[in-house]
Protein backbone atom coordinates (compact mmCIF):
# COMPACT_ATOMS: atom_id res chain seq x y z
CA UNK A 1 0.00 0.00 0.00
CA UNK A 2 1.58 3.27 -1.08
CA UNK A 3 0.79 6.80 -0.05
CA UNK A 4 2.51 8.95 -2.62
CA UNK A 5 3.39 12.55 -1.92
CA UNK A 6 5.79 15.09 -3.34
CA UNK A 7 9.31 13.59 -2.89
CA UNK A 8 12.14 15.57 -1.37
CA UNK A 9 15.92 15.24 -1.54
CA UNK A 10 17.93 14.93 1.68
CA UNK A 11 21.17 16.68 2.53
CA UNK A 12 23.14 13.57 1.58
CA UNK A 13 21.35 13.30 -1.74
CA UNK A 14 18.76 10.54 -1.15
CA UNK A 15 15.30 11.03 -2.57
CA UNK A 16 12.58 10.38 0.00
CA UNK A 17 9.13 9.71 -1.35
CA UNK A 18 6.14 7.75 -0.08
CA UNK A 19 4.54 8.29 3.26
CA UNK A 20 4.71 5.50 5.80
CA UNK A 21 2.93 7.02 8.75
CA UNK A 22 0.83 10.13 8.97
CA UNK A 23 -0.51 11.78 12.10
CA UNK A 24 -3.57 13.91 11.42
CA UNK A 25 -4.68 16.52 13.96
CA UNK A 26 -3.75 14.45 17.00
CA UNK A 27 -4.94 15.73 20.37
CA UNK A 28 -4.14 13.78 23.53
CA UNK A 29 -5.33 14.77 26.99
CA UNK A 30 -4.66 13.36 30.44
CA UNK A 31 -7.52 14.74 32.49
CA UNK A 32 -6.88 18.47 32.39
CA UNK A 33 -3.37 18.20 30.93
CA UNK A 34 -3.17 18.56 27.17
CA UNK A 35 -0.06 16.56 26.26
CA UNK A 36 -0.52 16.89 22.48
CA UNK A 37 -2.51 19.67 20.88
CA UNK A 38 -3.74 19.26 17.29
CA UNK A 39 -0.49 18.03 15.78
CA UNK A 40 -0.08 16.77 12.22
CA UNK A 41 3.08 15.45 10.59
CA UNK A 42 4.22 12.52 8.52
CA UNK A 43 7.04 10.01 8.45
CA UNK A 44 8.28 8.99 5.01
CA UNK A 45 9.58 5.57 3.95
CA UNK A 46 13.30 5.35 4.58
CA UNK A 47 13.90 8.64 6.33
CA UNK A 48 15.27 9.49 9.74
CA UNK A 49 12.74 11.74 11.39
CA UNK A 50 13.61 13.52 14.63
CA UNK A 51 11.16 14.81 17.21
CA UNK A 52 12.66 17.47 19.45
CA UNK A 53 11.43 19.87 22.08
CA UNK A 54 11.94 20.92 25.69
CA UNK A 55 11.07 18.65 28.64
CA UNK A 56 7.39 17.87 28.92
CA UNK A 57 6.71 18.98 25.35
CA UNK A 58 4.83 15.75 24.59
CA UNK A 59 7.46 13.90 22.54
CA UNK A 60 7.26 10.58 24.36
CA UNK A 61 3.49 10.85 24.36
CA UNK A 62 3.63 11.14 20.58
CA UNK A 63 5.69 7.95 20.29
CA UNK A 64 3.22 6.26 22.60
CA UNK A 65 0.40 7.27 20.28
CA UNK A 66 2.29 5.77 17.34
CA UNK A 67 2.89 2.58 19.38
CA UNK A 68 -0.79 2.31 20.18
CA UNK A 69 -0.09 2.64 23.90
CA UNK A 70 -1.97 5.94 24.18
CA UNK A 71 -5.17 6.53 22.25
CA UNK A 72 -5.66 10.16 21.26
CA UNK A 73 -9.03 11.79 21.98
CA UNK A 74 -8.99 13.46 18.59
CA UNK A 75 -7.23 12.86 15.30
CA UNK A 76 -6.30 9.97 13.08
CA UNK A 77 -3.25 7.81 12.52
CA UNK A 78 -2.68 6.70 8.93
CA UNK A 79 -0.34 3.84 8.14
CA UNK A 80 0.68 3.10 4.55
CA UNK A 81 -2.27 4.90 3.04
CA UNK A 82 -4.91 3.42 5.35
CA UNK A 83 -6.54 4.86 8.41
CA UNK A 84 -5.42 2.79 11.37
CA UNK A 85 -8.27 1.57 13.57
CA UNK A 86 -7.86 1.68 17.37
CA UNK A 87 -5.19 -0.94 17.96
CA UNK A 88 -3.55 -2.61 20.93
CA UNK A 89 0.20 -2.05 21.23
CA UNK A 90 1.00 -5.68 20.41
CA UNK A 91 -1.00 -5.39 17.18
CA UNK A 92 0.98 -2.30 16.20
CA UNK A 93 4.17 -4.25 16.91
CA UNK A 94 2.91 -7.08 14.69
CA UNK A 95 2.52 -4.54 11.88
CA UNK A 96 6.25 -3.89 12.00
CA UNK A 97 6.71 -1.03 14.45
CA UNK A 98 9.43 -1.59 17.06
CA UNK A 99 10.77 0.78 19.68
CA UNK A 100 13.06 1.54 22.56
CA UNK A 101 12.09 3.38 25.70
CA UNK A 102 13.22 6.56 27.42
CA UNK A 103 13.61 4.65 30.69
CA UNK A 104 15.17 1.35 29.68
CA UNK A 105 12.52 -1.36 29.64
CA UNK A 106 14.48 -4.59 29.33
CA UNK A 107 13.40 -7.90 30.83
CA UNK A 108 15.73 -7.99 33.79
CA UNK A 109 15.30 -11.63 34.69
CA UNK A 110 16.41 -12.78 31.25
CA UNK A 111 19.78 -12.99 29.50
CA UNK A 112 20.80 -10.60 26.74
CA UNK A 113 20.18 -13.35 24.21
CA UNK A 114 16.66 -14.06 25.49
CA UNK A 115 15.85 -10.35 25.53
CA UNK A 116 16.90 -10.00 21.91
CA UNK A 117 15.12 -13.24 20.94
CA UNK A 118 11.94 -11.84 22.50
CA UNK A 119 12.16 -9.11 19.88
CA UNK A 120 11.48 -11.73 17.21
CA UNK A 121 7.98 -12.70 18.30
CA UNK A 122 6.68 -11.38 15.01
CA UNK A 123 8.73 -13.98 13.16
CA UNK A 124 8.06 -16.87 15.56
CA UNK A 125 4.72 -18.44 14.85
CA UNK A 126 4.81 -22.08 16.01
CA UNK A 127 1.98 -22.87 18.40
CA UNK A 128 1.88 -24.29 21.89
CA UNK A 129 1.64 -27.90 20.68
CA UNK A 130 4.76 -27.77 18.53
CA UNK A 131 6.57 -26.01 21.34
CA UNK A 132 5.67 -28.80 23.76
CA UNK A 133 7.19 -31.40 21.47
CA UNK A 134 10.10 -29.12 20.56
CA UNK A 135 11.79 -31.48 18.10
CA UNK A 136 10.64 -30.50 14.62
CA UNK A 137 9.06 -27.13 13.80
CA UNK A 138 9.71 -25.44 17.15
CA UNK A 139 13.39 -26.30 17.23
CA UNK A 140 13.84 -25.41 13.58
CA UNK A 141 12.19 -22.05 14.12
CA UNK A 142 14.32 -21.40 17.20
CA UNK A 143 17.53 -22.10 15.28
CA UNK A 144 16.55 -19.94 12.28
CA UNK A 145 15.68 -17.03 14.50
CA UNK A 146 18.77 -17.54 16.60
CA UNK A 147 20.84 -17.13 13.44
CA UNK A 148 19.12 -13.86 12.61
CA UNK A 149 19.58 -12.65 16.18
CA UNK A 150 23.26 -13.54 16.17
CA UNK A 151 23.70 -11.28 13.13
CA UNK A 152 22.20 -8.39 15.06
CA UNK A 153 24.34 -9.23 18.08
CA UNK A 154 27.41 -9.09 15.83
CA UNK A 155 26.23 -5.89 14.20
CA UNK A 156 25.86 -4.15 17.57
CA UNK A 157 29.06 -5.70 18.90
CA UNK A 158 27.56 -7.31 21.98
CA UNK A 159 28.78 -10.89 21.37
CA UNK A 160 30.69 -11.05 24.62
CA UNK A 161 27.66 -10.42 26.82
CA UNK A 162 25.05 -12.54 25.10
CA UNK A 163 24.62 -14.95 28.03
CA UNK A 164 24.77 -12.25 30.73
CA UNK A 165 21.59 -11.42 32.66
CA UNK A 166 20.70 -7.88 31.54
CA UNK A 167 20.25 -6.70 35.12
CA UNK A 168 24.03 -6.86 35.57
CA UNK A 169 24.91 -4.65 32.58
CA UNK A 170 26.02 -1.03 32.78
CA UNK A 171 23.64 1.63 31.47
CA UNK A 172 25.25 2.20 28.07
CA UNK A 173 25.17 -1.49 27.20
CA UNK A 174 21.57 -1.80 28.34
CA UNK A 175 20.64 0.90 25.83
CA UNK A 176 22.42 -1.06 23.15
CA UNK A 177 20.69 -4.33 24.08
CA UNK A 178 17.38 -2.53 23.91
CA UNK A 179 18.24 -1.38 20.41
CA UNK A 180 19.19 -4.97 19.54
CA UNK A 181 15.81 -6.21 20.80
CA UNK A 182 14.01 -3.64 18.65
CA UNK A 183 16.14 -4.44 15.59
CA UNK A 184 15.53 -8.15 16.05
CA UNK A 185 11.93 -7.52 15.02
CA UNK A 186 13.23 -6.38 11.61
CA UNK A 187 10.84 -3.46 11.88
CA UNK A 188 9.70 -1.24 9.05
CA UNK A 189 9.47 1.65 11.48
CA UNK A 190 11.84 1.99 14.41
CA UNK A 191 10.96 4.40 17.22
CA UNK A 192 13.81 5.50 19.48
CA UNK A 193 13.03 7.50 22.61
CA UNK A 194 16.23 9.32 23.61
CA UNK A 195 18.62 6.54 22.56
CA UNK A 196 21.63 8.54 23.69
CA UNK A 197 20.42 10.05 26.94
CA UNK A 198 23.00 9.73 29.70
CA UNK A 199 25.79 8.54 27.42
CA UNK A 200 29.30 9.92 27.15
CA UNK A 201 30.63 11.32 23.88
CA UNK A 202 32.18 8.07 22.76
CA UNK A 203 29.04 6.04 23.45
CA UNK A 204 26.99 8.66 21.59
CA UNK A 205 29.25 8.36 18.57
CA UNK A 206 28.85 4.57 18.60
CA UNK A 207 25.09 4.85 18.89
CA UNK A 208 24.88 7.45 16.09
CA UNK A 209 26.88 5.16 13.86
CA UNK A 210 24.56 2.24 14.61
CA UNK A 211 21.48 4.34 13.85
CA UNK A 212 22.88 5.54 10.54
CA UNK A 213 23.96 1.99 9.63
CA UNK A 214 20.53 0.56 10.44
CA UNK A 215 18.88 3.17 8.22
CA UNK A 216 21.43 2.68 5.50
CA UNK A 217 21.89 -1.12 5.47
CA UNK A 218 18.39 -2.31 6.29
CA UNK A 219 16.48 0.67 4.88
CA UNK A 220 14.64 0.97 8.19
CA UNK A 221 12.57 4.10 8.70
CA UNK A 222 13.46 5.72 11.99
CA UNK A 223 11.69 8.24 14.22
CA UNK A 224 13.80 9.37 17.13
CA UNK A 225 13.56 11.74 20.05
CA UNK A 226 16.79 13.38 21.09
CA UNK A 227 17.90 16.35 23.18
CA UNK A 228 21.45 16.65 21.89
CA UNK A 229 21.12 19.18 19.05
CA UNK A 230 24.42 18.25 17.46
CA UNK A 231 23.30 14.64 17.16
CA UNK A 232 19.89 15.61 15.80
CA UNK A 233 21.36 17.85 13.15
CA UNK A 234 23.84 15.15 12.11
CA UNK A 235 21.45 12.23 11.98
CA UNK A 236 18.08 13.39 10.87
CA UNK A 237 16.61 14.16 7.48
CA UNK A 238 13.66 16.10 8.85
CA UNK A 239 12.75 17.41 12.28
CA UNK A 240 9.46 18.06 14.09
CA UNK A 241 9.74 20.56 16.93
CA UNK A 242 7.24 20.41 19.79
CA UNK A 243 6.69 22.78 22.68
CA UNK A 244 3.93 22.56 25.30
CA UNK A 245 2.11 19.96 23.22
CA UNK A 246 2.04 22.10 20.07
CA UNK A 247 4.05 21.74 16.89
CA UNK A 248 6.19 24.85 16.41
CA UNK A 249 8.42 23.72 13.57
CA UNK A 250 8.78 21.06 10.91
CA UNK A 251 11.40 20.73 8.20
CA UNK A 252 15.00 19.95 7.42
CA UNK A 253 17.57 20.56 10.19
CA UNK A 254 18.60 23.84 8.53
CA UNK A 255 15.05 25.12 8.21
CA UNK A 256 14.29 24.26 11.82
CA UNK A 257 17.48 25.79 13.13
CA UNK A 258 16.58 29.12 11.57
CA UNK A 259 12.92 29.06 12.60
CA UNK A 260 12.33 32.00 15.02
CA UNK A 261 9.65 30.12 17.04
CA UNK A 262 12.08 27.28 17.61
CA UNK A 263 14.83 29.63 18.66
CA UNK A 264 12.43 31.30 21.09
CA UNK A 265 11.35 27.98 22.58
CA UNK A 266 14.89 26.84 23.09
CA UNK A 267 16.07 30.15 24.52
CA UNK A 268 13.04 30.24 26.79
CA UNK A 269 11.70 33.56 25.49
CA UNK A 270 8.36 34.47 26.98
CA UNK A 271 5.57 34.31 24.44
CA UNK A 272 3.08 36.50 26.23
Amino acid sequence: MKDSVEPYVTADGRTIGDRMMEMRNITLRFGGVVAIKDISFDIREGEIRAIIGPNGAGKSSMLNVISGFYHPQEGEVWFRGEKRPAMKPYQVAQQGVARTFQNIALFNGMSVLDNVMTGRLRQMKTGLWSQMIWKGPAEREEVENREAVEKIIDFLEIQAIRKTPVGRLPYGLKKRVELARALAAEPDLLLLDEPMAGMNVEEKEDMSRFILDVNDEFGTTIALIEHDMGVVMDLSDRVVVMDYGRKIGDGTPDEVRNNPDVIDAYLGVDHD
Partner: protein
Amino acid sequence: MLYREAGDFKTSYVDDSQTFPIAFDRYRYWAVLAVAFLVIPFVIDDYWANAVFVPFLIYAIAAIGLNILVGYCGQVSLGTGGFMAVGAYACYKLMTAFPDVSIVIHVVLAGGITAAVGALFGLPSLRIKGFYLAVATLAAQFFLVWLFNKVSWFYNYSASGQISAPERSVLGIAVTGAQVAPWAQYMICLVFCTISAIIARNLTRGSTGRKWMAIRDMDIAAEIIGVNPLRAKLSAFAVSSFFVGISGALFFAVYLGAVEVGEAFGIQKSFLVLFMIIIGGLGSIFGSFAGAAFMVLLPVALKVVGVDWLGFPTDTVAHFQLVIVGALIMIFLIAEPHGLAQLWRLAKEKLRLWPFPY
Protein backbone atom coordinates in the same frame (compact mmCIF):
# COMPACT_ATOMS: atom_id res chain seq x y z
CA MET B 1 38.55 -32.09 35.86
CA LEU B 2 35.36 -33.45 34.36
CA TYR B 3 33.33 -30.37 34.93
CA ARG B 4 34.52 -28.22 32.07
CA GLU B 5 33.19 -26.45 29.04
CA ALA B 6 36.68 -26.37 27.54
CA GLY B 7 37.16 -28.81 24.71
CA ASP B 8 33.40 -29.26 24.58
CA PHE B 9 32.79 -26.75 21.79
CA LYS B 10 29.34 -25.99 20.52
CA THR B 11 29.29 -26.00 16.76
CA SER B 12 25.60 -25.32 16.26
CA TYR B 13 22.81 -23.33 17.87
CA VAL B 14 20.96 -26.57 18.58
CA ASP B 15 23.85 -27.71 20.78
CA ASP B 16 24.15 -24.31 22.37
CA SER B 17 20.53 -24.21 23.48
CA GLN B 18 20.32 -27.74 24.82
CA THR B 19 19.10 -28.34 28.33
CA PHE B 20 22.44 -29.41 29.78
CA PRO B 21 25.23 -27.62 27.92
CA ILE B 22 28.00 -29.30 29.90
CA ALA B 23 28.63 -32.94 29.01
CA PHE B 24 29.01 -33.99 32.64
CA ASP B 25 25.54 -32.58 33.45
CA ARG B 26 24.13 -34.56 30.55
CA TYR B 27 25.63 -37.79 31.84
CA ARG B 28 24.26 -37.10 35.29
CA TYR B 29 20.81 -36.49 33.85
CA TRP B 30 20.86 -39.84 32.07
CA ALA B 31 22.22 -41.50 35.19
CA VAL B 32 19.35 -40.11 37.30
CA LEU B 33 16.82 -41.29 34.74
CA ALA B 34 18.42 -44.74 34.59
CA VAL B 35 18.31 -45.11 38.37
CA ALA B 36 14.75 -43.81 38.52
CA PHE B 37 13.47 -46.18 35.83
CA LEU B 38 15.72 -49.22 36.14
CA VAL B 39 16.81 -49.45 39.78
CA ILE B 40 14.28 -47.90 42.15
CA PRO B 41 11.25 -49.88 40.86
CA PHE B 42 13.02 -53.11 41.81
CA VAL B 43 14.02 -52.09 45.31
CA ILE B 44 11.19 -49.81 46.39
CA ASP B 45 9.05 -50.96 49.31
CA ASP B 46 5.78 -49.74 50.74
CA TYR B 47 7.38 -47.32 53.20
CA TRP B 48 9.65 -45.61 50.65
CA ALA B 49 6.88 -45.40 48.09
CA ASN B 50 4.29 -43.88 50.39
CA ALA B 51 6.52 -41.74 52.57
CA VAL B 52 8.94 -40.45 49.96
CA PHE B 53 8.87 -41.30 46.28
CA VAL B 54 5.21 -41.20 45.28
CA PRO B 55 4.41 -37.92 47.09
CA PHE B 56 7.68 -36.45 45.81
CA LEU B 57 6.85 -37.21 42.18
CA ILE B 58 3.27 -35.97 42.50
CA TYR B 59 4.27 -32.76 44.27
CA ALA B 60 7.03 -32.23 41.71
CA ILE B 61 4.37 -32.16 38.97
CA ALA B 62 2.30 -29.66 40.97
CA ALA B 63 5.40 -27.56 41.65
CA ILE B 64 6.34 -27.53 37.96
CA GLY B 65 2.81 -26.35 37.19
CA LEU B 66 2.78 -23.60 39.79
CA ASN B 67 6.30 -22.55 38.83
CA ILE B 68 5.18 -21.92 35.26
CA LEU B 69 2.53 -19.56 36.51
CA VAL B 70 4.39 -17.85 39.37
CA GLY B 71 8.05 -18.31 38.53
CA TYR B 72 7.91 -17.89 34.77
CA CYS B 73 4.85 -15.74 34.15
CA GLY B 74 4.87 -13.79 37.42
CA GLN B 75 1.19 -14.33 38.24
CA VAL B 76 0.68 -15.19 41.90
CA SER B 77 -1.68 -18.04 42.70
CA LEU B 78 -2.98 -19.37 46.00
CA GLY B 79 -5.45 -21.67 44.29
CA THR B 80 -3.22 -24.72 43.75
CA GLY B 81 -5.16 -26.89 46.23
CA GLY B 82 -8.43 -26.02 44.52
CA PHE B 83 -7.02 -26.83 41.08
CA MET B 84 -5.63 -30.13 42.36
CA ALA B 85 -9.15 -30.86 43.57
CA VAL B 86 -10.51 -30.14 40.08
CA GLY B 87 -8.04 -32.68 38.69
CA ALA B 88 -8.98 -35.24 41.33
CA TYR B 89 -12.74 -34.87 40.92
CA ALA B 90 -12.52 -34.77 37.13
CA CYS B 91 -10.50 -37.98 37.23
CA TYR B 92 -13.01 -39.58 39.62
CA LYS B 93 -16.00 -38.65 37.47
CA LEU B 94 -14.27 -39.93 34.34
CA MET B 95 -13.15 -43.15 36.02
CA THR B 96 -16.66 -43.94 37.21
CA ALA B 97 -18.46 -42.77 34.06
CA PHE B 98 -16.16 -44.56 31.58
CA PRO B 99 -14.78 -47.59 33.42
CA ASP B 100 -13.48 -49.17 30.21
CA VAL B 101 -11.24 -46.27 29.24
CA SER B 102 -7.62 -46.33 30.40
CA ILE B 103 -6.79 -44.43 33.58
CA VAL B 104 -3.88 -42.84 31.74
CA ILE B 105 -6.36 -41.12 29.43
CA HIS B 106 -8.50 -40.12 32.40
CA VAL B 107 -5.56 -38.48 34.13
CA VAL B 108 -4.60 -36.57 30.98
CA LEU B 109 -8.21 -35.49 30.43
CA ALA B 110 -8.44 -34.44 34.08
CA GLY B 111 -5.43 -32.24 33.37
CA GLY B 112 -7.22 -30.80 30.33
CA ILE B 113 -10.36 -30.02 32.31
CA THR B 114 -8.27 -28.36 35.03
CA ALA B 115 -6.53 -26.33 32.32
CA ALA B 116 -9.89 -24.98 31.16
CA VAL B 117 -10.97 -24.19 34.73
CA GLY B 118 -7.59 -22.60 35.42
CA ALA B 119 -7.83 -20.37 32.35
CA LEU B 120 -11.30 -19.31 33.48
CA PHE B 121 -10.06 -18.35 36.94
CA GLY B 122 -7.09 -16.69 35.27
CA LEU B 123 -9.32 -14.13 33.56
CA PRO B 124 -9.06 -11.63 36.46
CA SER B 125 -5.28 -11.54 35.87
CA LEU B 126 -5.96 -9.43 32.79
CA ARG B 127 -7.16 -6.67 35.10
CA ILE B 128 -5.48 -7.15 38.43
CA LYS B 129 -1.98 -7.96 39.62
CA GLY B 130 0.04 -9.01 42.63
CA PHE B 131 -1.76 -8.93 45.93
CA TYR B 132 -5.21 -8.50 44.41
CA LEU B 133 -4.68 -11.42 42.06
CA ALA B 134 -3.51 -13.53 44.99
CA VAL B 135 -6.77 -12.73 46.78
CA ALA B 136 -8.80 -13.62 43.69
CA THR B 137 -7.08 -17.00 43.40
CA LEU B 138 -7.62 -17.52 47.12
CA ALA B 139 -11.32 -17.00 46.48
CA ALA B 140 -11.11 -19.63 43.72
CA GLN B 141 -9.51 -22.01 46.21
CA PHE B 142 -12.34 -21.64 48.73
CA PHE B 143 -15.02 -21.66 46.07
CA LEU B 144 -13.77 -24.91 44.50
CA VAL B 145 -13.50 -26.74 47.81
CA TRP B 146 -16.97 -25.53 48.74
CA LEU B 147 -18.32 -26.62 45.37
CA PHE B 148 -16.97 -30.17 45.63
CA ASN B 149 -18.37 -30.43 49.14
CA LYS B 150 -21.74 -29.00 48.32
CA VAL B 151 -22.72 -30.52 44.99
CA SER B 152 -23.15 -34.24 45.61
CA TRP B 153 -23.04 -35.01 41.86
CA PHE B 154 -19.26 -34.58 42.07
CA TYR B 155 -18.89 -37.44 44.57
CA ASN B 156 -21.62 -39.56 42.96
CA TYR B 157 -23.97 -38.98 45.95
CA SER B 158 -21.87 -41.20 48.22
CA ALA B 159 -23.01 -41.11 51.85
CA SER B 160 -19.57 -40.27 53.22
CA GLY B 161 -19.08 -37.33 50.84
CA GLN B 162 -15.72 -38.87 49.92
CA ILE B 163 -14.52 -40.04 46.56
CA SER B 164 -12.61 -43.28 46.32
CA ALA B 165 -10.70 -44.65 43.37
CA PRO B 166 -11.94 -47.91 41.86
CA GLU B 167 -9.30 -50.43 40.88
CA ARG B 168 -7.76 -49.68 37.49
CA SER B 169 -4.81 -51.16 35.75
CA VAL B 170 -2.32 -50.23 33.06
CA LEU B 171 -0.99 -53.08 30.85
CA GLY B 172 -2.66 -55.53 33.22
CA ILE B 173 -0.93 -54.16 36.32
CA ALA B 174 -3.09 -52.52 38.99
CA VAL B 175 -2.14 -48.87 39.59
CA THR B 176 -5.11 -47.80 41.74
CA GLY B 177 -7.29 -49.50 44.34
CA ALA B 178 -6.42 -51.68 47.34
CA GLN B 179 -4.30 -54.26 45.50
CA VAL B 180 -1.76 -51.85 44.06
CA ALA B 181 1.93 -52.66 44.40
CA PRO B 182 4.30 -49.88 45.54
CA TRP B 183 6.46 -50.15 42.44
CA ALA B 184 3.39 -49.78 40.18
CA GLN B 185 2.28 -46.62 42.03
CA TYR B 186 5.80 -45.33 41.70
CA MET B 187 6.11 -46.13 38.00
CA ILE B 188 2.93 -44.44 36.86
CA CYS B 189 3.82 -41.30 38.81
CA LEU B 190 7.37 -41.40 37.45
CA VAL B 191 6.16 -41.59 33.86
CA PHE B 192 3.78 -38.67 34.31
CA CYS B 193 6.40 -36.66 36.16
CA THR B 194 9.10 -37.24 33.55
CA ILE B 195 6.85 -36.30 30.65
CA SER B 196 5.56 -33.24 32.52
CA ALA B 197 9.10 -32.06 33.17
CA ILE B 198 10.11 -32.51 29.53
CA ILE B 199 7.04 -30.63 28.28
CA ALA B 200 7.58 -27.85 30.79
CA ARG B 201 11.21 -27.57 29.82
CA ASN B 202 10.32 -27.40 26.12
CA LEU B 203 7.72 -24.72 26.68
CA THR B 204 10.02 -22.58 28.79
CA ARG B 205 13.08 -22.78 26.51
CA GLY B 206 11.39 -21.29 23.42
CA SER B 207 9.22 -18.37 22.42
CA THR B 208 6.31 -19.35 24.70
CA GLY B 209 8.57 -19.20 27.73
CA ARG B 210 10.05 -15.89 26.64
CA LYS B 211 6.56 -14.42 26.32
CA TRP B 212 5.74 -15.54 29.85
CA MET B 213 9.00 -14.17 31.24
CA ALA B 214 8.55 -10.90 29.37
CA ILE B 215 5.14 -10.48 30.99
CA ARG B 216 6.68 -11.32 34.36
CA ASP B 217 9.57 -8.87 34.05
CA MET B 218 7.77 -5.89 32.52
CA ASP B 219 4.28 -6.39 31.22
CA ILE B 220 3.86 -3.00 29.52
CA ALA B 221 7.10 -3.30 27.57
CA ALA B 222 6.17 -6.88 26.69
CA GLU B 223 2.92 -5.75 25.16
CA ILE B 224 4.59 -2.92 23.24
CA ILE B 225 7.13 -5.28 21.67
CA GLY B 226 4.38 -7.63 20.55
CA VAL B 227 3.29 -9.98 23.35
CA ASN B 228 -0.47 -10.44 23.47
CA PRO B 229 -0.96 -10.24 27.25
CA LEU B 230 -4.31 -11.99 27.17
CA ARG B 231 -2.90 -15.02 25.39
CA ALA B 232 0.32 -15.13 27.36
CA LYS B 233 -1.38 -14.97 30.76
CA LEU B 234 -4.22 -17.32 29.95
CA SER B 235 -1.85 -19.85 28.37
CA ALA B 236 0.26 -19.72 31.53
CA PHE B 237 -2.83 -20.31 33.66
CA ALA B 238 -3.96 -23.15 31.40
CA VAL B 239 -0.60 -24.92 31.14
CA SER B 240 0.05 -24.46 34.84
CA SER B 241 -3.37 -25.82 35.76
CA PHE B 242 -2.91 -28.73 33.37
CA PHE B 243 0.06 -29.98 35.40
CA VAL B 244 -1.59 -29.15 38.71
CA GLY B 245 -4.69 -31.06 37.59
CA ILE B 246 -2.62 -34.10 36.69
CA SER B 247 -0.93 -34.01 40.05
CA GLY B 248 -4.33 -33.75 41.77
CA ALA B 249 -5.64 -36.71 39.81
CA LEU B 250 -2.61 -38.84 40.73
CA PHE B 251 -2.70 -37.64 44.33
CA PHE B 252 -6.27 -38.88 44.62
CA ALA B 253 -6.28 -41.98 42.43
CA VAL B 254 -2.80 -43.39 42.92
CA TYR B 255 -1.54 -42.01 46.23
CA LEU B 256 -4.45 -41.59 48.65
CA GLY B 257 -7.07 -43.78 46.98
CA ALA B 258 -9.86 -42.01 48.86
CA VAL B 259 -10.23 -38.28 49.38
CA GLU B 260 -12.24 -35.78 51.36
CA VAL B 261 -11.83 -32.50 49.53
CA GLY B 262 -11.30 -30.07 52.39
CA GLU B 263 -8.76 -32.35 54.01
CA ALA B 264 -6.73 -33.29 50.94
CA PHE B 265 -6.97 -30.12 48.86
CA GLY B 266 -7.41 -27.33 51.37
CA ILE B 267 -5.56 -24.04 51.51
CA GLN B 268 -2.61 -25.78 53.22
CA LYS B 269 -1.95 -27.57 49.95
CA SER B 270 -1.79 -24.26 48.08
CA PHE B 271 0.79 -22.97 50.53
CA LEU B 272 2.75 -26.22 50.56
CA VAL B 273 3.28 -26.13 46.79
CA LEU B 274 4.02 -22.40 46.89
CA PHE B 275 6.68 -23.01 49.55
CA MET B 276 8.16 -25.74 47.37
CA ILE B 277 8.79 -23.38 44.50
CA ILE B 278 10.03 -20.56 46.71
CA ILE B 279 12.53 -22.82 48.44
CA GLY B 280 13.38 -24.73 45.29
CA GLY B 281 13.66 -21.72 43.03
CA LEU B 282 11.21 -19.56 41.12
CA GLY B 283 11.50 -19.86 37.36
CA SER B 284 13.37 -23.17 37.36
CA ILE B 285 12.19 -26.67 36.50
CA PHE B 286 15.03 -28.18 38.48
CA GLY B 287 14.02 -25.94 41.39
CA SER B 288 10.53 -27.44 41.31
CA PHE B 289 12.06 -30.86 41.91
CA ALA B 290 14.44 -29.58 44.56
CA GLY B 291 11.63 -27.83 46.43
CA ALA B 292 9.31 -30.83 46.24
CA ALA B 293 12.09 -33.12 47.48
CA PHE B 294 12.88 -30.75 50.31
CA MET B 295 9.32 -30.35 51.53
CA VAL B 296 8.62 -34.08 51.28
CA LEU B 297 11.86 -35.16 52.90
CA LEU B 298 11.91 -32.59 55.69
CA PRO B 299 9.11 -34.11 57.81
CA VAL B 300 10.44 -37.62 57.16
CA ALA B 301 13.96 -36.64 58.17
CA LEU B 302 12.78 -34.70 61.21
CA LYS B 303 10.71 -37.64 62.35
CA VAL B 304 13.60 -40.05 62.00
CA VAL B 305 16.06 -37.76 63.75
CA GLY B 306 13.78 -36.03 66.26
CA VAL B 307 11.35 -38.76 67.26
CA ASP B 308 13.13 -42.02 66.57
CA TRP B 309 16.69 -41.09 67.51
CA LEU B 310 16.38 -38.25 70.00
CA GLY B 311 13.05 -39.28 71.47
CA PHE B 312 11.26 -35.91 71.29
CA PRO B 313 7.47 -35.98 71.35
CA THR B 314 5.87 -35.96 67.88
CA ASP B 315 4.11 -32.60 68.28
CA THR B 316 7.33 -30.84 69.33
CA VAL B 317 8.99 -32.08 66.17
CA ALA B 318 6.00 -30.99 64.09
CA HIS B 319 6.25 -27.48 65.54
CA PHE B 320 9.95 -27.47 64.92
CA GLN B 321 9.23 -28.27 61.26
CA LEU B 322 6.95 -25.21 60.97
CA VAL B 323 9.69 -23.03 62.42
CA ILE B 324 12.27 -24.36 59.97
CA VAL B 325 10.03 -23.92 56.94
CA GLY B 326 8.99 -20.43 58.04
CA ALA B 327 12.58 -19.35 58.56
CA LEU B 328 13.68 -20.82 55.23
CA ILE B 329 10.88 -19.09 53.35
CA MET B 330 11.93 -15.76 54.80
CA ILE B 331 15.60 -16.37 54.11
CA PHE B 332 14.99 -17.41 50.53
CA LEU B 333 12.53 -14.62 49.78
CA ILE B 334 14.91 -12.00 51.11
CA ALA B 335 18.32 -13.37 50.22
CA GLU B 336 17.92 -15.80 47.32
CA PRO B 337 14.64 -15.63 45.40
CA HIS B 338 15.94 -18.23 42.97
CA GLY B 339 16.11 -20.76 45.75
CA LEU B 340 18.02 -24.01 45.97
CA ALA B 341 18.35 -24.09 42.20
CA GLN B 342 20.41 -20.88 42.28
CA LEU B 343 22.60 -22.14 45.13
CA TRP B 344 23.23 -25.22 43.04
CA ARG B 345 24.06 -23.07 39.99
CA LEU B 346 26.47 -20.94 42.01
CA ALA B 347 28.17 -24.04 43.34
CA LYS B 348 28.56 -25.31 39.78
CA GLU B 349 29.88 -21.93 38.64
CA LYS B 350 32.57 -22.15 41.30
CA LEU B 351 33.33 -25.74 40.34
CA ARG B 352 33.69 -24.86 36.68
CA LEU B 353 36.39 -22.32 37.44
CA TRP B 354 38.01 -24.26 40.29
CA PRO B 355 40.82 -24.18 41.27
CA PHE B 356 41.61 -20.88 39.55
CA PRO B 357 38.65 -18.58 40.13
CA TYR B 358 40.06 -15.78 37.96
